[in-house]
């Protein structure tokens, strides 16, 4: 097969902070395919793209793109390729037309070419009615299309898209994928990087990176096939999937992964043979790409978290969190409109929805960080508006990007958070020691929190948030950008706390994580358009993402 790029023994390190971004990488990218570049944050995806573009110079090794050396023949190469950086590389204070004009001029298209390509691109991206709108006022999906449009000017042979799906709702993401495939059919090769493993199955080819190393290169089915016959799901709804999960984690040693999926439990076995005791309960299901990745990475941690032993919840009412017609209006923009739900004791409640749909606003109103324009919020029967500080004392809050003090050491962070939660003296020291033990932080105590590996940052953030033994946990995108093993470990902690009666409200972008929730509120355009159990939202045979898209499309139809 013809290749569009060849990479041999490529190495790239950064000095400050010292990171090995790419380690001895050898791959060949096939021509005329849509290639997924997949891996958690920090895997080396962006570095690899920048090396291919000649924006970075390798430490050692060989790269050739379209037969050119990106370092010496940068300008020549740039004429043949299109690149869409993260955040799309658009000028937000320029209109769609002005952005396109600028990039057309920078690529020195002739007037005729300009006219012809503009017409084609505006049609291709459906942006024709909006050409005078400023790029900053476009939705995530439209920005993404415009970014792609500008990249396509000059008819490149090779497109490199760096995380085009971030911050974009699943419908737009699917549309973009469709557009990319129509480009492939015109002979363009596309490299698409993403940290979502569930996107992998859609690509012709997949390059999977972890810590700068190549884990897999080939067709996604090749990898998934290996797991055929090794993935099972419970055949009937379980009363308590979480305690069932704990039981099999404890008793089974032939499993490499076990997760909750609505009211079922899904397991991945080391081989095709299943413990006869289990085979009555389970039936085989189709493996997913993520199962295969977990398999390659050596399996998920299979013991339940010791954190549960420390949890002690008393005097908690049945309804722990109550949102009553919460509405937030910023100027003329309604960020949240009449959002209502009850969250019961010991429940995991998920807020799902595209960026900007109103998830974070709802979240902030319920933990007293934003004052609702109307409506009420209660935490343990305490009015969030009248008495925010009292209500907040019952909360553990883990913010997006973990919000640790990055220049303080791990120990200093622990001390600080235990201090602000009012712990003192012996009790404080005891609690810190427990956290260090549970989350295995002792090798890192003196290291600055900002330099920790992402997984440890997440552990530390969870330790800080649960320091005061709160009956309620608020988790705002706690696992975004984290590799699947670390995510499993994180959910282990959460599940064991929930079993002891802790109530959790969580926002997430991961569809499989949505299925760990007892109930989900689907937030779209500021409204909770559906609330229910994952199994109720899904129709039979649907994945969570299918359900998500269907519900939004139904809503769009209704509101038209």
């Amino acid at each position, binding site marked *: 097969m013809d290749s569009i790029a060849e990479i041999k023994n490529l190495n790239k390190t950064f000095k400050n902070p010292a990171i090995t971004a790419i380690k001895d990488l050898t791959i060949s990218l096939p021509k005329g395919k849509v290639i997924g570049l997949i891996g958690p944050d920090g895997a080396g995806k962006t570095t690899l793209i*920048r090396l291919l*573009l*000649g*924006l*970075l*110079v390798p430490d050692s090794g060989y790269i050739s793109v379209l037969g050119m050396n990106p370092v010496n023949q*940068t*300008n020549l190469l*740039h*004429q043949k*390729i299109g*690149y*869409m*950086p*993260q*955040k*799309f*590389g*658009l*000028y*937000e*204070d*320029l209109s769609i037309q*002005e952005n396109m*004009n*600028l*990039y057309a*001029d*920078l*690529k*020195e298209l002739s007037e005729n070419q300009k006219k012809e390509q503009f017409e084609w691109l505006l049609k291709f991206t459906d942006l024709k009615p909006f050409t005078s709108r*400023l790029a900053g006022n476009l939705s995530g999906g439209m920005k993404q299309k415009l970014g792609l449009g*500008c990249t396509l000017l000059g008819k490149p042979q090779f497109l490199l898209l760096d995380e085009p799906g971030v911050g974009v709702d699943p419908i737009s993401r699917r549309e973009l994928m469709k557009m990319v495939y129509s480009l492939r059919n015109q002979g363009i090769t596309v490299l698409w990087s993403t940290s979502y493993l569930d996107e992998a199955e859609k690509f012709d080819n997949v390059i999977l990176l972890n810590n700068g190393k190549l884990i897999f290169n080939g067709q996604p089915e090749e990898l998934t096939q290996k797991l055929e016959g090794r993935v099972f799901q419970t055949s009937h709804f379980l009363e308590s999937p979480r305690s069932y999960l704990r039981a099999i984690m404890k008793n089974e040693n032939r499993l490499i992964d076990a997760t909750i999926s609505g009211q079922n439990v899904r397991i991945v076995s080391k081989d095709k043979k299943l413990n006869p005791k289990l085979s009555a309960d389970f039936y085989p299901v189709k493996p997913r790409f993520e199962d295969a990745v977990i398999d390659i990475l050596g399996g998920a941690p299979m013991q339940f978290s010791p954190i549960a032993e420390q949890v002690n919840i008393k005097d908690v009412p049945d309804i722990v969190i109550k949102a009553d017609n919460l509405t937030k209006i910023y100027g003329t923009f309604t960020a949240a409109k009449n959002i209502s739900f009850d969250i019961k004791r010991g429940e995991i409640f998920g807020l799902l929805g595209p960026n900007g749909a109103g998830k974070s606003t709802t979240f902030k109103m319920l933990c007293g960080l934003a004052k609702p324009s109307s409506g009420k919020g209660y935490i343990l029967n305490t009015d969030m508006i009248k008495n925010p500080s009292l209500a907040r004392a019952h909360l553990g809050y883990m913010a997006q990007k973990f919000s640790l003090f990055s220049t303080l050491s791990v120990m200093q962070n622990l001390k600080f958070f235990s201090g602000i939660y009012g712990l003192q003296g012996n009790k404080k020291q005891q609690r810190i020691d427990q956290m260090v033990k549970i989350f295995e932080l002792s090798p890192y105590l003196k290291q600055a929190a900002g330099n920790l590996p992402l997984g440890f940052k997440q552990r530390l953030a969870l330790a800080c948030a649960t320091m005061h033994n709160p009956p309620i946990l608020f988790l705002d995108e706690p696992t975004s950008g984290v590799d699947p093993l670390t995510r499993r470990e994180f959910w282990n902690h959460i599940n064991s706390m929930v079993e002891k009666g802790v109530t959790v409200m969580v926002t997430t972008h991961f569809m499989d994580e949505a299925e760990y929730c007892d109930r989900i509120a689907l937030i779209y355009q500021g409204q909770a358009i559906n609330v229910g159990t994952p199994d109720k939202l899904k129709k039979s045979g649907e994945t969570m993402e299918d359900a998500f898209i269907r519900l939004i499309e139904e809503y769009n139809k209704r509101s038209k």
Partner: protein
Amino acid sequence: MRILKALIYKEFLQIIRDPSSVLTALILPFILITIFATAINLDNNTIETGLVIEGDRGQINDIIASFDGTKYVKIYRYDNRKSAQQALVRGDIRALVVIPNNFAQAFAAKTNAAVQIITDASDPNIALFAAAYVQGIISTAQKIILENYGYNTNVGIRIESQSWYNPELKSRYFILPSSIAIIMTLIGILLTALVIAREWERGTMESLLTTKASKLQIISAKYIAYYCLAIISAAFCTFLSIVIFDVPFRGSYLIYFITASLFLFPSLGMGFIISTLTKNQFLSAVAAAMFGFLPAIMLSGGLFEISSMPSAIRSLTNIIPATYFIPIIKNLFMAGNIWPIIIQEGLSLLIYGIIMFVFLHFVTKERLE
């Protein structure tokens, strides 16, 4: 050429659509010029004044009475000249009025009766006002004496004014032109410090680097666009000074335009360099204030005399572009076209600007490292 034109057009669109750049270029100068122009108006302040009366008192009581009758001057009495002068040196008083031994005799004899005023001119504004107040009060006293005693003392009292520490008294006319130079520094550095960092933060720089645009074109487009904005801002400041605050302008406007342009060259460059090195809007705004604006206020010689600084600091003033422009602009306003200064300082600005441009070209990378 076409790429350059497209980039310049883009910069202009961004300037027009970004309210903060218009705010920085027009509203901020307006506020600053007004502050600089009115800050020297001390009408409401009390000036501590020492008074020494040597010899007998006679009609002097009337003069003292008129001092006490004003809220602008607070009188401190001293027994002798020496202790009063020490108080002036310590800064307890800002001005000193000495009525000498022979005053009463000279006054009675209707010969030259002298009153001496000594002001602390290290702060020229206060000194100027102190002297003016004291003179005004003495005139009032003369009027009172004339009315009450029938003496016309106009002929008799001669005021000898003496300024300490800064014999050539500066007026507000000197301060406004310097402040134009300082404001231009602010505009030049602050506006530009943000723009390259913004391109990095928003990821657009990465897109630009993968097009045909060269770094020379990217830099030049920014220079040209922000030069236009800053020169409009400078013209606006000049207009305010001349028309609203009545500062005379005695030089040639053409020379002013050329030298102002030469001055903007290194200032803009400094802002772009800060922006390129930090790649972060917040950091570069702080850096622009620390390395651009504050030194221009304190060390350029606009507000504080360079010649009165310690020699180590004096040599530091050489690295501030405004240091070269302030002599030119002061002379253009106050004196006219003083060619030796214009040529010498103008040449320094040109060389400085070229160094900055070359340095910027050097630190701007076509790759991400």
